[in-house]
């Protein structure tokens, strides 16, 4: 599904070159659940953003669904992203002015999905995450765990092929975190959703099928669980 070849990322400030990622090679197959770990500043978030096409590498080859991303134009890349990738953030990043229902519905609006279909899809999603009762609340009225559930629901509503999560439990207490991880595991096992997550927590990483350790922008180790 995904293949990174010799991916590097560095910033130049005057004569100073700051390297963030250095010659990364990574292949992810459909149905995998990959956890990326590493200390702060090891480049794991940058790697995730490059995979998610929110950031561009300085060098290297990037293939996604057999398309050479590094050769695509911005517009094509966006289209590919829009159809196939869902994002979940540590800070949830829900839109404060919208209710739970509307937050989940918004991606469908941008995908030009008709009203009836939207209603059905959002209702399904609310059902599935058991947040029907919260649908008219605003994000500020929810607990962190609930907000993250909405964030995941919003990412999943357009049925992406790849779910990217940047420390999805970082702002949650351990009980809430466990629930989210269980949900990821279920998604991966039962629906075959490909998931790549960045995490600090050894325990959360264990939920995945493979753990990749980054250090100073290079892959230090990669082991299957």
């Amino acid at each position, binding site marked *: 599904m995904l293949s990174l070849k010799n991916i590097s990322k560095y910033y130049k400030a005057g004569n100073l070159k700051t390297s963030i990622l250095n010659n990364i090679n990574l292949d992810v197959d459909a149905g995998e659940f990959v956890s990326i770990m590493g200390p702060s500043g090891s480049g794991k978030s940058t790697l995730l953003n490059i995979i998610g096409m929110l950031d561009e590498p300085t060098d290297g080859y990037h293939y996604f669904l057999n398309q050479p991303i590094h050769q695509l134009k911005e517009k094509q890349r966006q289209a590919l992203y829009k159809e196939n990738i869902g994002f979940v953030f540590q800070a949830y990043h829900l*839109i404060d002015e*919208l209710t739970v229902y509307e937050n989940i*519905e918004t*991606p469908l609006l941008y995908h030009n999905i008709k009203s009836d279909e939207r209603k059905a899809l959002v209702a399904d999603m609310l059902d599935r995450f058991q947040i029907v009762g919260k649908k008219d609340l605003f994000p500020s009225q929810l607990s962190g765990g609930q907000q993250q559930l909405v964030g995941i629901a919003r990412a999943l509503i357009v049925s992406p092929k790849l779910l990217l999560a940047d420390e999805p439990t970082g702002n949650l207490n351990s009980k809430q975190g466990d629930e989210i991880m269980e949900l990821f595991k279920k998604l991966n096992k039962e629906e075959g959703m490909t998931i790549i997550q960045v995490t600090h927590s050894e325990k959360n990483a264990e939920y995945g099928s493979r753990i990749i350790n980054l250090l100073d922008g290079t892959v230090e180790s990669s082991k299957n669980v």
Partner: protein
Amino acid sequence: MLKNYIKIAWRNIVNKKLYSAINIIGLTVGLAVGLLILLWVQDETSYDKFNTKVDRIYKVNASIGTGASKQVWGGTPAPVAFHAAKEVPGVEAAVRVVGDMDYSKFRYKDKLLRRTATMKFVDDAFFTVFDYKLLKGDPKKPFPTDQSIILSVTEAKKYFGDTDPMGKVLRGDDKDPYTVSGVMADMPANSSIQADYLFSINVRKKQYNGKGMWKAMDEDWGDYWADTYLLLKANASPIAIADKLTRIHMSLQKGIKPTDGVFQLQPLADIHLYNPDLTSAGAEIVKIFSIVALLILLIACINYVNLSTARSVLRSKEVSVRKIIGAERKHLFFQFVFETALCFLIALVLAFGIIYAIMPLYNHIANKEMHFDLFSTSVWKVIGITTIITLAASSIYPAILLSSFKPIDALRSRASGVGSGNFRKVLVVCQFAFSIGLIIGTLVINRQLHYIQTTQVGYDRDHVFTVNLYNNMYPHQDAVKAELLRHREITGVAVGDNIVNGDSSTGDTDWDGKPATASMVIHPFSIDQDFIKVFKVKLIAGSNFTGEKSDTSHYILNETAIKEAGIKNPIGKRFKLWQRNGIIIGVVKDFHFASLKQVIEPAIFSYAEKSGQLFVKTTGKNAAAAINLVKQYHVQYNHGDPPFEYNFLDDDFNNLYKTEQSTSMLFSIFAGIAIFISCLGLFGLATYTAQVKVKEIGIRKVLGASVLNITTMLSKDFLLLIVISLLIASPIAWYAMDKWLESYVYRISVNWITIALAGVGAILIALITISFQSIKAALANPVKSLRSE
């Protein structure tokens, strides 16, 4: 999708109450004032355009004299229309409109009403050339007989109520009978011709009895008393026609100088805004106000753009999230467009409310009867253009701005660097440059107005009031004068023409040693022997009238007249006014008998034993008593008909500057509003800055910065912008006001004090606006602001 946009827009407006209030108030006031001004401009430029043939209708003006003493009169001799219609090719029809010979009251049966509306004598073609609506009667033959009268609906109702006026007889001044032959719709307020009573021009024609200097009306080339309108054939040349008319005049009036009575055609559409000599009679103010309206709208738009772009930075998180979940540029663009549109809609509704509410007051100040028509296309043109400009600036810019950054960066770093503040700074500078420009304009206009109203005009009009003697008191004026003078409340009495506004003039002058080619237009005042004393006009040579019989052949001239005529040692020299030869017995110092916009022109005093106008000088303390005394005589002689009326010359004098006064008042209001809206925007920006810098302020306070330090830090950037605005605005305003002042012969000059005053004023107002937020931010507890980060 649409519903979603509107919903989000609405929630954004409701959630951010302060910003929304600033935005909407600014837009509302801007739109309301902008629309009100444009309404006024539209009214001013709409004059006479209701005539469908307006493109082909011209007014004939007459140029008299050459060089400095050249004048252009709006009236022509009556034969112009006669010959134009008869023998000038290209003229389809000619209409004369003449006032004068006023009946003061009309009687229908036992109903006797004082005439308060205008009466005019017109040619038969009146209703076919112009579009005035004849509701009853025949437009082709409006006056079946010379004793026909046409009334406006309003006047007809006064005499006849709901009964049909046609065929009924009105008696003018209780003697002359006129049969109603038509009823016309009231003339529109934006018509240059105004009349409620129309008579056939033949009534005037009959007043020529074959004796006297001019035998018949259509041969009288000497009196310029008819407003002459020509309807030209399509493609006829107005210049050629004017030339032809001049040639006819020269060939028919024997002994006329080739420079006296040269005709010019002025398009009907121009006569409201331009004088016969093509100088501005309001066109300039229309131009100025259009610019002011534009500036105010711009200031309001800038406000919105500034605040919404500033706020879009704070909203970068939301925008980023939307991008990540699939929003494209167009989605974000339309979201911003809808928000702006909704704000506009609210502002528009409020603006309409304001306009409706203050329309009566506005009409009062502007001295007009305007109606705000929600369904007029021009109103919507203004709204449309304003909306599109604001929408474009406040949607496209943030849309481009926000879609250009990488969403992931914005999410991480709170996007402090999105969009350069330079764009906003330029806009703030523009805004304040406009405002300061308007303030300078207001100051200069007010100073000039003060100057012309306090300048010594060369005569003393203090505590002088005037009354009309009317027919019954007129013969007894010597007795009345003598008796009034016996009272100590009255310090002087005179009769004559009004000295404040000498608007009549004649070119019919001759004097010893007059070169063959010379001509002099002179303003005649007929006065009695007390006039010069009462008004303290300074006699610099010769003597005053004495009141003896011989005075009828004596003249007193002003300095300018003597200079222009080139008379050396004038006392005792011959001077001829109209057809009356006399000698010059005195010379007075120049005095202003017109607006200070005009240079002093030649003037002449001739002696009249009796005159219709009485002037009474009193003192401030005794004014009421003096008025009462005069009233007693009025009641005694005129028996309360017409009712007693008086007016102080000070009011007449102020009337000369009525336009200037209402202009200056409106200008002050507009400048105030401009600065208000600008400050509203500044307030919003200061709030925003304080919000963005909340962390920096917190850190500085922890490090020991005082409230004053913080306030200075937050204020100084803004103040710098105001100073830059001042530097940009002052030379432009200086230049513009210098140009405006050029229309006054007697004027102040723009000086540094005015500019400094405007600058200090603007800075002070801005400082107060900013410091309100700055101090609040500086006083905030740093622990709070740092913790929340």
